[in-house]
């Protein structure tokens, strides 16, 4: 459905604009035409991020850069590494301090000023939160960053996390978890702060469900693809990834990189790693927020699921599959690549989704031995708390809270299958993780793959070992947590595109609601007779 760039009449004089294939991909640098964020359609509708502030939580922003200065929100910026209001990048022992500036350019680089390129949301405001530049991270600095001015900052973008070495299992600590919870409940006047996370650079060796930030329900975890739709080799996959944007990849073509601003007034064609993915997504969310400032943090996740496109994404390893309500997903790319045009179109008419409920669907507390060569299969049958005030009928996130240890933690593989038959890889093999003492202790593995499904029925958890050498271990606990709504989230929504996922989902919900109404009236008649 993509048309030529000239159809859009987007003629910006920024020298790098034609190299920003992630904005408008016409096939430049051996790319695939049309594989982009479709921002031109959103810009055409007049949405460019006006009135939205995005914070880049990183190593500071060169806020004197001529392509950033005009869009810099000094009032919302702070330097927590040095405790002053000037988050300008400073030399650190590894001299790598351009990260935040490159992220900032992807979101809010000024358009039509004949400098560098153009931000996804080029009329938004960008705030700098410098918080990575101290010898070690601390809970107090992370919490301060994530809870900085939540009534001014709408979106927080993070392109960092626990070390992606394929053996670290880590996540937010006490103060930061509290700050995130406060953010989604009280930020933006109660509509909720929007946290966007780059899912990780560990490649095939790591699994972003071992990163407590990316696998949190409160953050939107974003993966990345390169300009021909393949994954960037360093991309981690996991079931908590919701969608994808773009980063530079494995191509030799220097222009296949991500063009953006760089330190000290420079421009660059090479924003490295998956870090570009988060700010690009933050920019798209800013366009949606301009289209509808009332969107809640959950609305943003629903819009992401409904408007992300498979497009021409290509994953050699994992098949694209449909879940129980027909939503197509992929283990690496989530529900697909963000589509800014579709997102702002849907955001304009969007009615906030119904209240969210939480149900502890069941728990297995006995210890079970796990042996190589044989899968441990456990099941929990649940009515999803039906009949109680916290009944969950339409799923959003599912968590399997697991306590397990093994002679080699990296060989553990966990799969979860929903009552509607959707199989989700909760943990894939991590060949570099040789831990045999810590294991996973009440670790909340999260999946987005059953979005919209009816959770009632039998859930199956399979635990096994994926390596060659024989291993053993013990699963001590599995608790299944369901999060979602009681009433159909899409049944009230306005459908304008009858080919869209929303149209399909709404039809599905109507049919199910009708079936259940008929069932209930039959039951009433039977009970009367």
């Amino acid at each position, binding site marked *: 459905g993509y048309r030529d760039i000239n159809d859009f009449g987007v003629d910006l004089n920024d020298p790098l604009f034609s190299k920003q294939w992630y904005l408008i991909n016409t096939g430049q640098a051996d790319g695939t035409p049309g594989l982009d964020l479709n921002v031109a359609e959103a810009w055409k509708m007049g949405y460019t991020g006006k009135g939205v502030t995005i914070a880049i939580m990183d190593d500071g922003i060169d806020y004197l850069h001529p392509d950033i200065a005009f869009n810099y929100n000094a009032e919302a910026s702070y330097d927590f590494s040095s*405790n002053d209001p000037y988050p300008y990048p400073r030399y650190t022992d590894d001299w790598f301090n351009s990260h935040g500036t490159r992220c900032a350019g992807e979101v809010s680089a000024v358009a039509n000023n004949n400098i560098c390129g153009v931000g996804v949301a080029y009329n938004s405001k960008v705030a700098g939160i410098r918080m990575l530049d101290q010898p070690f*991270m*601390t809970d107090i600095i992370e919490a*301060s960053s994530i809870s900085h001015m939540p009534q001014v900052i709408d979106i927080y973008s993070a*392109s960092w996390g626990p070390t992606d070495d394929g053996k670290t299992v880590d996540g937010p600590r006490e103060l930061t978890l509290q700050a995130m919870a406060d953010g989604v409940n009280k930020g933006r006047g109660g509509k909720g702060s929007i946290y966007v996370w780059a899912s*990780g*650079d560990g490649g095939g060796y790591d699994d972003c469900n071992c990163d407590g930030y990316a696998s949190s329900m409160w953050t939107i975890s974003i993966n990345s693809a390169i300009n021909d739709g393949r994954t960037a080799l360093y991309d981690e996959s996991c079931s908590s990834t919701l969608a994808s944007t773009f980063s530079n990849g494995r191509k030799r073509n220097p222009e296949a990189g991500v063009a953006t601003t760089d330190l000290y007034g420079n421009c660059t064609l090479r924003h490295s*790693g998956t870090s570009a993915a988060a700010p690009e997504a933050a920019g798209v969310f800013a366009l949606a927020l301009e289209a509808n400032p009332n969107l809640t943090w959950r609305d943003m996740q629903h819009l992401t699921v409904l408007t992300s496109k498979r497009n021409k994404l290509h994953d050699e390893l994992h098949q694209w599959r449909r879940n129980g309500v027909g939503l197509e997903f992929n283990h690496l790319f989530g529900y697909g690549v963000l589509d800014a045009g579709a997102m702002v179109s849907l955001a304009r008419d969007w009615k906030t989704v119904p209240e969210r409920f939480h149900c502890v669907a069941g728990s297995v507390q006995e210890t079970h031995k796990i042996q190589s060569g044989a899968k441990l299969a456990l099941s929990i049958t649940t009515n999803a708390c039906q009949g109680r005030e916290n009944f969950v009928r339409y799923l959003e996130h599912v968590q399997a809270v697991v306590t397990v240890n093994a002679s080699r933690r990296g060989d553990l593989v966990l799969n979860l299958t929903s009552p509607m038959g959707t199989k989700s890889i909760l943990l894939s093999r991590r060949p570099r993780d040789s831990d045999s003492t810590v294991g996973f202790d009440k670790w909340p593995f999260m999946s987005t793959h059953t979005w919209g499904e009816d959770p009632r029925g039998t859930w199956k958890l399979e635990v096994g070992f994926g390596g060659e050498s024989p291993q053993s271990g013990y699963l001590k606990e599995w608790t299944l947590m369901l999060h979602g709504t009681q009433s159909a989230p899409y049944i009230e929504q306005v459908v304008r595109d009858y080919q869209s996922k929303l149209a399909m989902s709404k039809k599905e919900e109507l049919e199910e609601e009708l079936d259940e109404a008929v069932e209930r009236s039959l039951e009433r008649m039977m009970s009367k007779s």
Partner: protein
Amino acid sequence: EEGIYTNHLLVQLHEGGNEDAQQLALEYGFGSARQLPFGERLFHFYPRDTPKTRRKRSLLRRQHLDKDQRVKKVIAQEGFERQKR
């Protein structure tokens, strides 16, 4: 596995605001203090920018601070790795 302790402290006062915290921080040889937007009278005490404060001295400093009448609680901040992506 064991935590790395930084010289950053989470300090809770019985009463008072930023000026009192700033005053206390300087008295005990810290670089600065910043009130946290969450919690009750919680402050982040930053170490002075000296390159390598000696471990023993910073431990003593923290212990003295902990005994100060104005202070309700002092929590040393564990350091952990975070990597750019």
